[in-house]
């Protein structure tokens, strides 16, 4: 009987240990899922990923701080003399255009949402067919880009997507279920596009028949909502502003490029309106 008790104790203790290990394993997996680590097996990569992401967050905060400090310096130099005041004003306008300062003003907020219809698959459709069909129930990066483009065409002066400022260098793309704006992962649904400009002009640009949002109205009108906003603040662009390749061109060459582009437009018009006229011109020469 002594012997029997010995094995019971040992096995029970080891069972408790195993239970603990299983729980630990579950919790670790849970954490991995929550952190959206790329793959469990690539442990070293996973760790590097977490570290880099933390680095990126702190660096972005640093950029914000430095930008703020820079702006203070600019404002201070602006108060010295008339000349430097003008210069500082110009600089501020350039900053606003570039998106490197946060701006506020009236405008619209466009909210794009994945359709609720995407959640329940009709039973009489195969999995593969449904994947194709449900495609249009989701918000895609191209939809967001279209909205941004249309807002710009309607006179938006500053745009942000999911509180990431859209600058001249901003890519917008989907990576799985998230939207990357300025290489920052943001929510895939709802996507909130804010624009500063004339609210009525922006709204009518959005509502245009055959416009960017027309397709959604056919699929599911609840996917889009547009609100006029009296005052909103868009954050500053915090990505890299270091230029490695682009240089300021000299004026003569810049003018040449401008004239060339204007001529190209004229030629294009002619070709569209009257294809023969181009040939005729050539024939005369």
């Amino acid at each position, binding site marked *: 009987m002594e012997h029997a008790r010995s094995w019971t104790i040992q096995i029970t203790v*080891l069972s408790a240990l195993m239970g603990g290990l299983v729980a630990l394993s579950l919790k*670790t997996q849970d954490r991995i899922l929550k952190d959206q680590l790329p793959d469990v097996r690539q*442990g070293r990569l996973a760790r590097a990923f977490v570290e880099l992401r933390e680095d990126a967050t702190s660096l972005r905060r640093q950029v914000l701080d430095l930008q703020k400090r820079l702006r203070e310096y600019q404002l201070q130099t602006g108060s010295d003399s008339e000349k430097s005041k003008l210069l500082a004003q110009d600089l501020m306008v350039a900053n606003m255009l570039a998106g490197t300062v946060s701006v506020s003003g009236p405008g619209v907020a466009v909210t794009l949402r994945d359709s609720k219809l995407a959640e329940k698959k009709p039973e009489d459709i195969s999995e593969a067919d449904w994947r194709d069909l449900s495609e249009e129930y989701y918000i895609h990066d191209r939809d967001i880009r279209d909205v941004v483009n249309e807002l710009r065409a309607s006179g938006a002066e500053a745009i942000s997507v999911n509180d990431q400022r859209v600058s001249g260098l901003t890519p917008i793309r989907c990576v799985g279920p998230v939207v990357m704006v300025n290489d920052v992962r943001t929510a895939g649904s709802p996507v909130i596009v804010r624009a500063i400009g004339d609210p009525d002009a922006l709204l009518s640009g959005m509502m245009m028949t055959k416009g960017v949002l027309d397709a959604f109205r056919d699929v599911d009108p609840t996917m889009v909502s547009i609100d006029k906003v009296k005052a909103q603040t868009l954050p500053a662009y915090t990505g890299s502003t270091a230029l490695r390749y682009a240089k300021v061109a000299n004026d003569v060459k810049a003018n040449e490029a401008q004239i060339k582009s204007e001529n190209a437009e004229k030629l294009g018009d002619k070709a569209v309106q009257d294809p023969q006229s181009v040939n005729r011109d050539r024939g005369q020469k």
Partner: protein
Amino acid sequence: MKAQIWFPVVGVTVGFSVVFFSKYTLSPTFAPYLSIAVLAALDAICGGIRAALEGKFTDGIFITGFIINTVLAALLAWIGDKIGVDIVLAAVVMLGGRIFLNLSLIRRLLLTKATS
């Protein structure tokens, strides 16, 4: 004898809930080693129960078997990680196979005991 069969189940439940409701978590780096340790523990438990049912249980063999299996499996996982080959699969297959074998033997022993 019948009551003793439930002891491991109680053990697992207690151990699980103690760790699960504590705040302690492990770095994701150790996740693959952890799953190997779980497998080795499960194998040792199955082997231990089987030996006990057969009346061949020996103190030292049970504990050392568990420790050495775990260490070896972790070592294989580590080496595999270094040279880029999943050697750890060897341990997984081996331990998994043994678990099934032992479980079937336990089942047979219990059934024959129940009928006789």
